[in-house]
């Protein structure tokens, strides 16, 4: 699952759960049936689980594009070297 997919999964989960909660509470209250509320909410949780927990293909539409290793070697990171040298100097003193 890529970054965009993770964000989508979390938002889908929250929206679906809250929507099912509102719908089931409303239905249960109007019908006067506590059991109906529980059944609808349980169904909603199962559905939300099926939608957001497995790693579905639509969560992987924005894969990260890494550089080739050969391309990366041509452009070494300058920050890393500075960090290493600055750490070594106080150690010698």
């Amino acid at each position, binding site marked *: *699952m890529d970054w965009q997919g993770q964000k989508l999964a979390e938002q889908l989960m929250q929206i679906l*759960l809250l929507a099912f909660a509102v719908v089931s509470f409303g239905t*249960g209250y109007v019908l*006067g*049936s506590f059991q109906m509320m529980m059944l609808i*909410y349980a169904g909603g*949780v199962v559905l939300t*689980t099926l939608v957001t927990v*497995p790693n579905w293909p639509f969560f992987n539409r924005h894969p990260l594009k890494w550089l080739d290793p050969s391309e990366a070697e041509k452009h070494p990171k300058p920050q890393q070297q500075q960090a290493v040298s600055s750490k070594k100097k106080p150690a010698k003193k």
Partner: protein
Amino acid sequence: MHSFGYRANALITLGVTVLALMCAMASLSDNLNSPTPSAQVQVLNVNWFQKQRNGNEEVSLTLNISADLQSMFTWNTKQVFVFLAAEYETPKNSLNQVSLWDGIIPSKEHAKFLIHTTNKYRFIDQGSNLQGKEFNLTLHWHVMPKTGKMFADKIVMTGYRLPEEYR
């Protein structure tokens, strides 16, 4: 949210939290209901009235208990427990409560009833103060919800009197 386990954990956590909220709201919705129960009790007969060997007086009554408790039932009510108590004052105790009858009402359909019965539990005084005693019959109830807060209330019926003589 990067792995199966983390997503399942997040879903269960939010799911149970929302469920708790729904239950709290269901309990709060009970406050919108203002019950108007009614009850009448007739003492049809004093079957016998005597003093035990240890000096405590005991009475046996035949009662007609009719009540309409349907308005107590909401969508969040599991059952209602009712009991009828004889309440009176003696020099020793400012309030004596003797449970005479009780019942569990499992649903709204059973909440309107008329029961003809002798006292289910023995009506024994602590001592011998019952001759000619004026007493109240009080119908107490506890509304037991499916989730949340339990409610309790009572109806006091006054003006009952025991006979002066043993029989």
